[in-house]
């Protein structure tokens, strides 16, 4: 094959795709299936986007690339942190550098060495971007200007305005005025520890249902119409001596009256002037923006935070996801137009984010529905799958007989109705201890703040991982090497088959030790135990950051009502190819060898899978 086109549709669920295929609702995917085949593809332990796509890219289990979760922990401080990348600064005089924590040799590394070009767009864990023969645009892992996954800002004239999760709030006073003076909240100045700002003026036009944002940015006057996502505003935050940071931001006017409510997206890196490199070559992001228009550069771009916090509604969220899908498609078509040979990969994240926020509408009894229901939202996911199918169709137009087309998802999807407080379970079963003055519940805080490490043998951080407080590894470890197997066995035995007493259903299908599912040089960084939840269950919200709430179970009442971090066997992804392939045991580790084999390049030494083409 001269070319391989890989389209990732994050989170596409086989149990939804298959009936739709059979009902003729996904004609282009059906074409691919007819030309080659379809199978369910095994996902990773755990079934998480950065883990799964890293395995896709390297062809190794997570023990080979080192990404085991969104969240990793530091055994010296016991603190959680983002697992995808970190920043290092060799001395105070060098600028900080981003370091990708996904290691291993990727399929594009192997191709580059063999002289075959690749274009890789928005693959998770490609930040900072690799040196690739070809082009790369970083995906999940790129921060917003505040350094996180995305912190939006909500402007409101309401009397009481409290910040909800992961957002900034700015109080504004309208007082019958036409113009409000306010500011855009920018990055934190590391030295003064206050937020950098750009001053803006909001001209209110209630009769025209719009607001105009005036500033020193570009454009100087930005029109924001109610109910529509505004175009991009480019701003510069100044700090210190002649130093400035560029960013792009867009707005959604929720309402002008009676209260003023304006939502601002997280501030993304400007494609042509990112704070840290997001493309390879470094000019590529700017060039792409000039060709297809300014685009979201942050690793997670869908405004689920705004929806989760109730700042924007489902319609606004869907509209924004639609824009993201459209801009991603423009990137895809621009690159496919000039794809001569080699590998082309692009990931569409939106199906995953849509399913997280709309799954609850398929389940009338979902705690997040609050007893209500919403008929027009029940088919949102299927509608979105259809849009993705259209995109596949447009991609297929660029495939000739020398092109292998692969469409796949990294994992499936399921319900998230009940959260499990793993640390509290460990506390109640004597594996974890709190200091005498602390108790489970909100006062226990998060970040394992009040844990008495001298009496703690295991703790949970992240989305389903349990770590042993191991002597010689953790700073205050107590579990001796000789006791490890016994502690693991005890936790396994205790958690497996755990039933949710309120629902009388199985919550935890099993617990696996990392050695059972991982191999390779980086296994030492993985949690010692992985919890496999049953459908509907997941690590609770507080558990990921080391909280110890009251009780073992809680209802998930957030709008983020669907998820997939459960037993991986329950959430395989979908795999389509336009050539016949052996699909019965297909796994994500097989994709890299398949791509390499199609392009005539020997597979990488560490790759564990096999080429699937028949």
């Amino acid at each position: 094959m001269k070319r391989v086109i890989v389209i990732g549709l994050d989170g596409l669920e086989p149990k939804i795709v298959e009936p739709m295929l059979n009902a003729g609702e996904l004609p282009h995917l059906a074409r691919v299936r007819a030309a080659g085949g379809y199978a369910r593809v095994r996902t990773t332990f755990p079934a998480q986007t950065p883990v799964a796509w890293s395995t896709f890219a390297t062809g190794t289990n997570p023990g080979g690339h080192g990404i085991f979760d969104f969240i990793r922990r530091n055994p010296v401080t016991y603190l959680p942190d983002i697992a995808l990348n970190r920043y290092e600064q060799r001395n105070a005089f060098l600028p900080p550098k981003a370091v990708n924590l996904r290691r291993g040799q990727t399929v594009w590394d192997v191709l580059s060495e063999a002289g075959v070009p690749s274009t890789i767009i928005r693959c998770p864990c490609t930040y900072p971007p690799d040196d690739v023969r070809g082009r790369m645009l970083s995906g999940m892992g790129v921060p917003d200007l505040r350094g996180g996954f995305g912190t939006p800002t909500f402007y409101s004239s309401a009397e009481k305005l409290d910040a909800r999760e992961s957002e900034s709030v700015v109080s504004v006073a309208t007082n019958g005025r036409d113009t409000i003076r306010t500011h855009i909240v920018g990055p934190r100045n590391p030295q003064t520890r206050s937020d950098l700002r750009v001053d803006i003026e909001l001209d209110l036009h209630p009769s025209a249902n719009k607001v105009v944002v005036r500033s020193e940015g570009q454009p100087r006057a930005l029109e924001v119409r109610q109910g529509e996502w505004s175009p991009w505003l480019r701003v510069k935050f100044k700090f210190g001596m002649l130093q400035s940071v560029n960013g792009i931001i867009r707005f959604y006017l929720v309402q002008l009256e009676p209260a003023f409510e304006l939502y601002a997206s997280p501030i993304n890196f400007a494609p042509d002037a990112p704070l840290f490199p997001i493309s390879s070559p470094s000019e590529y992001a700017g060039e792409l923006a000039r060709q297809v228009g300014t685009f979201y550069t942050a690793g997670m771009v869908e405004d689920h935070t705004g929806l989760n916090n109730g700042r924007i509604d489902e319609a606004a969220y869907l509209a924004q996801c639609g824009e993201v899908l459209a801009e991603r498609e423009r990137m895809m078509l621009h690159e496919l137009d000039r794809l001569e040979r080699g590998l082309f990969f692009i990931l569409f994240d939106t199906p995953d984010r849509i399913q997280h926020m709309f799954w609850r509408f398929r389940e009338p009894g979902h705690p997040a529905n609050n007893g209500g229901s919403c008929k027009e939202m029940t088919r949102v996911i299927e509608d979105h799958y259809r849009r993705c199918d259209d995109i596949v169709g447009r991609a297929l137009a660029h495939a000739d007989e020398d092109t292998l087309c692969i469409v796949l998802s990294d994992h499936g999807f399921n319900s998230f109705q009940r959260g499990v407080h793993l640390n509290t379970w460990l506390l109640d079963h004597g594996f974890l201890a709190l200091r005498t003055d602390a108790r489970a519940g909100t006062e226990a805080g998060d970040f394992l703040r009040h844990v008495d490490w001298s009496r703690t043998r295991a703790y949970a951080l992240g989305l389903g991982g349990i770590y042993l407080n191991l002597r010689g590894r953790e700073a205050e470890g107590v579990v001796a090497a000789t006791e490890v197997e016994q502690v693991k066995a005890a936790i396994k035995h205790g958690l497996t088959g755990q039933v949710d007493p309120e629902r009388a259903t199985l919550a935890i299908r099993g617990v696996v030790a990392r050695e059972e599912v991982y191999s390779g040089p980086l296994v030492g960084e993985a949690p010692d135990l992985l919890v496999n939840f049953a459908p509907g269950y997941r690590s609770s919200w507080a558990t990921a950051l080391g909280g110890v709430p009251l009780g073992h179970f809680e209802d998930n009442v957030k709008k983020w009502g669907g998820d997939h971090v459960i037993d991986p066997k329950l959430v395989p992804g979908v795999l389509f190819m336009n050539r016949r392939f052996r699909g019965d045991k297909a796994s994500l580790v097989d994709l890299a060898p398949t791509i390499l084999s199609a392009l005539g390049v020997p597979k990488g030494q560490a790759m564990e899978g096999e080429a699937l083409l028949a």
Partner: protein
Amino acid sequence: MKILVIGLDCAAPELLFGVAGLSNFRRLMENGCYGRLESVIPPITVPAWMCMSTSQDPGSLGVYGFRNRTSYAYGDLGIANSRSIQELAIWDQVAREGKKANIIGVPPSFPPRKVNGISVGCFLTPDTKADTYTHPAEVKDEIAALVGEYPVDVKGFRTDRKDWLKDQIYDMSRKHFEVVRHYLRRSDWDYFQFVEIGLDRIHHGFWKYHDPKHVQHEPGSPYADVIRDYYRYLDMELGRIFEVLSDDTAVLVVSDHGAQRLDGGFCVNEWLVREGLLVLHEYPKTVTPFAKLSVNWEKTKVWSEGGYYARIFFNVKGREPSGVIDKVDYEEFRDELQARLEATVDDRGRPLGTLVFQPHEIYKTVRNIAPDLIVHFGGLYWRSIGGVGYRAIHVQENDTGPDDCNHAQFGAFILAAPSIPLRGEISGARLLDIAPTLLELGGYDVPSSMQGRSLVRGRASSNSAAPPLSIDEEEIIRQRLSGLGYIS
């Protein structure tokens, strides 16, 4: 804590601070303190670098410029070299306390100074091929292996061949920095100081294209950005130096004086002739340097050596061979001449603002043979021309070749170090304060011979333990995880 001193000869604070495009200099400033640095009188490379390194003024060192009178005989001028200044320098104190120091190109360091480490001769080295200009001697071979022929200066930098001059300056600077990086990485050092002379040469060669206020400024010249670009080049080299530093290093960027435009040359000996103080047997038909003039010493009271500043010498009875001025009249004469010099005007009759200094008033001690007066014509906006035959007091051309700028009294410094107690812009810092400051930061004793005061006096914290993990660390983690929908 190790100490690295990056000397940029003639760096001007106006061109270093708050200038776009100098991100590495700025990073240093943000990690420490910076400001204008008042130089010595006269603000000249020799003795200013040694004044800084010894924290002693020119009078105490007994060196008042490159050329100094070696006796009271007329015309007995000697060129300063490393043997002229042997006072206790910062690297000597470092050695006294058992640590190692490297000095590269710190004027004057030919013949090479014997340090507890490596020393490489400065721009006064006559011939790097023939002379031993390094200590130990083998270093010369290592340098040759690294960069081939090692240019200590751009000979003939006062030239009209500007493209050639620019290329030579860059070639020299690149080689210098390569040698510096090599020894930063591969040698054992606790104190490391080097001086890059290229910046001084670039200023002298290209100032008029850069400064719109220069009388000979040519707008739209292709050389308009040469100086700005060289500062950017230095910024890039600074970044490369950062790459080879370890964590526990204090970094000082410093200059011995600043730079400013030249408005013209003041022919000081012509002026003395006109004032009747300098008497020649014969006024020369063409422009003649002072040394070649036929001076009537029995009638002459005052003569001068030119340069960026003027050294004024009196013909004193019982001191000079054919002295004329009586010793009892010396002070009154000196004060009156000072007043006359301060009243000098430019070619349009406007007061020049000339500054005149008496050595005994500005130095702690006066050793060797000091000039009787030191003069900064027009506050150094005017050179002093020593030759006679111009038939004018004010001229535009320089007697030693095209040279667009003079030295300015204030240079610059940026000092950054882990847990340095000083932050932001510092005013009132003087060149002589540098050595005591560095020694105190490094935990060394400050010898009593040093005249300046430490800028961190009593405040330097040595080996402060890293603060325990605080709320800040958690805050940073929360920021990093903010917006990750999978968690709350």
